[in-house]
């Protein structure tokens, strides 16, 4: 029995030795024609998808962002008067460039985007509820708009070798004549972009 144990241990070490590369790990070679998609959350929420071919990158995203008025009731407090918000929805398509760097994937892009939203103006009136605490609804004049803007995005993606999803951070902007918006989002990518910079074992 003791001899079999030594045989098993010997087999284990021989397999481990065989698994070790004889030479240094090959440089990461970008995969071609891979898809990815996921979600992002920060000072806005988004759903995104992308296509990567060599270093060329195509991105599509739809993002919703909301924010408090500059002044007036509802401009302070996290949960207080939650119903008073400016908001914007964006649908955008971008093209850009990606580059592996130290085990991460850097990327940036620009494109064209459609935005629709409302921007709160002056405070008008409050309807008070009968609740003991809170329950107020504040009404503002607002500007409703639709516009074509210039979406920008720059981000970094951290692949997790043992798991398929990758995590990232992205800075997004939409420059348009109605209401330009800037977002910092933490992103989750569920597809293959992370594999593009992880060497195959």
């Amino acid at each position, binding site marked *: 029995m003791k001899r079999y144990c030594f045989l098993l241990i010997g087999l284990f070490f021989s397999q481990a030795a065989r698994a070790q590369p004889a030479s240094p790990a090959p440089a990461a070679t970008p995969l071609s024609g891979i898809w990815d998609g996921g979600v992002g959350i920060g000072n806005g929420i988004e759903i995104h998808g992308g296509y990567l071919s060599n270093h060329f990158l195509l991105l599509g995203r739809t993002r919703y962002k909301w924010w408090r008025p500059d*002044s*007036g*009731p509802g401009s302070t407090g996290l949960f207080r008067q939650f119903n008073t918000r400016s908001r914007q929805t964006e649908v955008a398509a971008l093209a850009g460039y990606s580059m592996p760097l130290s085990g991460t994937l850097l990327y940036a892009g620009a494109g*064209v*985007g459609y935005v629709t939203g*409302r921007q709160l*103006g002056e*405070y*008008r*009136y*409050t*309807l*008070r*509820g*009968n*609740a*003991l*605490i809170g*329950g*107020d609804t*504040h*009404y*503002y*004049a*607002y*500007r*409703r*708009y*639709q*516009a*074509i*803007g*210039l979406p920008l995005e720059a981000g970094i993606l951290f692949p997790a070798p043992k798991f398929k999803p990758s995590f990232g951070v992205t800075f997004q902007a939409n*420059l*348009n*004549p*109605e209401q330009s918006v800037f977002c910092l989002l933490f992103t989750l990518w569920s597809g293959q972009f992370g594999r593009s910079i992880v060497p195959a074992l």
Partner: protein
Amino acid sequence: MALILRIAAGCSLTTTEVEPELPTGRVSDGNTLVYRSNGVPVVAHNDSSLGTFLTSLFGDNRPVAGNLIGSNELIIRARDSQNEAVGGQTRHELHLALPDFQGVGTYFIASPYSYYQETIPTKSRNNQTPPQTFYPTTAATVEVTEWNPTTRQLRGTFGCTVADTTTGQLVVLTDGHFDVIVN
């Protein structure tokens, strides 16, 4: 370069300035009077929130009240001071006096007992700006559409132009309606 940046920054497709709708009916089941002042919505209503209850303990009048004085003089008073004090926010007060109230019908309102005031509160209680007072011009009317002497519930509509007799400035009050329990 500026032109390129402008093109790159996109273009507007549609833009609409929107004023919020006026509420209909009684708000928070309290006396309610609403109207538009030069198109801007003004809403006054009573409520039973804790804050309003505590304020009333210190002698503050309720924002909307209807009082029948004597046998047939009806006074409706409404101010939107229950709104949070916001610097630069105009406060509105409206008095509608119907000196010969007989129930459902159309009534002419006139100065000096009917008037409209605008005040811009300041943060300092000791240094308040005096209100600007406007009085109804000719043909200002209130239409009482419902009056129940038993429950003392009064409903109606109004619309008129008021003028500051000193400066001649006009303010148009439109879409006015009220739903009050008369004291």
